[in-house]
């Protein structure tokens, strides 16, 4: 049990990348339209985030410095500021979308309009950041998010044609009813959301909140190699569910309520109850991750005290940033902005933030001044370079594809 508990930071971080509100719908929507053809994008995203989260975790454990603190040090104030603005905008849009996501999930359980839940959800998220210890928050939401494993059970329960699914995934062929731009748009949005920068901010800062040192590298590794694969597994399960149930019926997914239908078919009311609990836990976990990351990025860039290592009074500006981001997000949501659409727009800004986040991490992970004897080996550097190239390619292609397909239409 101790082993599982010690990997909840990894699980919680992975939730933000693979099963936040945007991914719950995106994974389901791609399953309904492309079957398992875009599974490779989730797998590629998994490898990418494992490579970079592991590096960021090691940097945090060895140098006790978090990612955004090092980004400014490596890129200087001007380019660092550009990354800060892009990342903060992504963090804010994501935080807003996740608060909306929690409300949408609660609406599914209560059929009371999601707008009414938003103030309560925003207050709950802020209160958790304000009062709850980091380890406690991480344990609770990391484990609660595992309720989404019900979707894996549902896939087996539907007794699918496994050969058909695996051949779809391997051939990764574009269905004739879909256009190439929308194929690549959805592939890039699945990949980009799996490697969103705030996962790396949260994971490395979380490592410092947990006082990681050289001795904790095995725990760091466990977090990476347990947490992120679980996240990817959940995303692939949701994709498989809609590929099996909704694709034959030509149902396109653009509401959270449609995502529950395959599990309802497979496991009935109990399945839905567990799934909705998983939705609430994952969107809340992702909201906390985005809220913390908003504070982490700004405070670490300016060198202010940050995090839950001390009471709020001793990290006032960090908490101020989180507070403003949370309640500004709430206010915008109450104007009726569609939370699911918001995560798609954040893709544009992560295009700029992606390369400017992962280049400094790659360099610092090989710098003996920070890593002492734990500098990157040849394999980590090779994988890091390959994925830095893929991430930059995705970043360049994201915006034109979004315009071309008018948001994946």
């Amino acid at each position, binding site marked *: 049990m101790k082993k599982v508990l010690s990997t909840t930071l990894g699980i919680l971080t992975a939730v933000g990348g693979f099963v936040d509100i945007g991914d719950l719908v995106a994974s389901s929507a791609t399953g309904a339209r492309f079957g398992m053809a875009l599974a490779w994008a989730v797998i590629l995203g998994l490898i990418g985030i494992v490579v970079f989260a592991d590096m960021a975790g090691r940097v945090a454990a060895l140098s006790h410095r978090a990612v955004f603190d090092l980004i400014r040090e490596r890129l200087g104030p001007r380019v660092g500021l550009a990354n800060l603005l892009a990342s903060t905008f992504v963090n804010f849009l994501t935080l807003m979308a996740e608060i909306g996501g929690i409300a949408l999930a609660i609406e*599914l*359980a209560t059929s009371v309009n999601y707008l009414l839940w938003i103030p309560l959800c925003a207050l709950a998220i802020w209160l958790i950041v304000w009062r709850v210890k980091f380890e406690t928050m991480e344990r609770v939401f990391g484990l609660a998010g595992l309720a989404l494993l019900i979707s894996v059970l549902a896939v087996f329960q539907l007794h699918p044609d496994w050969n058909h699914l695996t051949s779809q995934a391997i051939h990764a062929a574009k269905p004739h009813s879909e256009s190439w731009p929308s194929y690549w748009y959805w592939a890039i949005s699945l990949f980009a959301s799996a490697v969103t920068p705030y996962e790396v901010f949260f994971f490395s800062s979380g490592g410092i909140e947990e006082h990681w040192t050289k001795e904790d590298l095995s725990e760091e590794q466990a977090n990476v190699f347990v947490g992120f694969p679980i996240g990817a597994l959940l995303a692939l399960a949701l994709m498989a569910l809609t590929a099996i149930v909704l694709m034959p*019926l030509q149902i396109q997914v653009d509401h959270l309520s449609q995502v529950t*239908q395959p599990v309802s078919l497979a496991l009935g009311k109990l399945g*839905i109850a567990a799934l909705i609990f998983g939705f609430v836990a994952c969107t809340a976990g992702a909201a906390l991750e985005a809220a913390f990351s908003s504070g982490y990025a700004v405070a670490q860039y300016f060198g202010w005290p940050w995090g839950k290592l001390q009471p709020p009074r001793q990290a006032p500006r960090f908490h101020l940033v989180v507070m403003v981001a949370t309640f500004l997000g709430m206010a915008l949501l109450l104007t009726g902005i569609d939370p699911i659409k918001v995560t798609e727009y954040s893709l544009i800004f992560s295009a700029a933030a992606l390369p400017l986040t992962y280049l400094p991490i790659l360099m610092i992970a090989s710098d003996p001044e920070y890593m002492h004897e734990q500098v990157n080996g040849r394999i980590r550097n090779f994988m890091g370079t390959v994925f830095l190239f893929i991430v930059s390619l995705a970043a360049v292609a994201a915006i034109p594809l979004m315009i071309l397909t008018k948001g994946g239409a």
Partner: protein
Amino acid sequence: MVHAGPARTLGPYQSKADRTAETVDSYVQTALLSIELADNTRVNLNTLSVQLDDAATGASGAHNSFDTVEPPSEIADQLQEQLDRLLSQVDGQLSALATDAHRHHISELAQHRQPLQDLSQQIKQLENQLS
């Protein structure tokens, strides 16, 4: 009604009609799946009514945005009239369905199955003519 501007040639108008038909048919199928789930008591009432509300608002949203586009020619007029008739019937069925769900009249949901299946059939036929 605010006109979003005429689609100059038949081509774009036809593809707009085709996409609208596809979207509305997707919502009809969603509603049919919800009815089947409700019949087998595999979905709780709250989630069911949200599913049916989303289907109703989704379909009428697609219908409204289709109506805002002015048909550029007589052939397009005929197409618009044909599709519009189908979409209005769908809107009627889906909003009745959503209301039944909110009033917890689960037994009455099944009566909407047949009309929705016919409408889905007709929409699919229209789609085949278009593409």
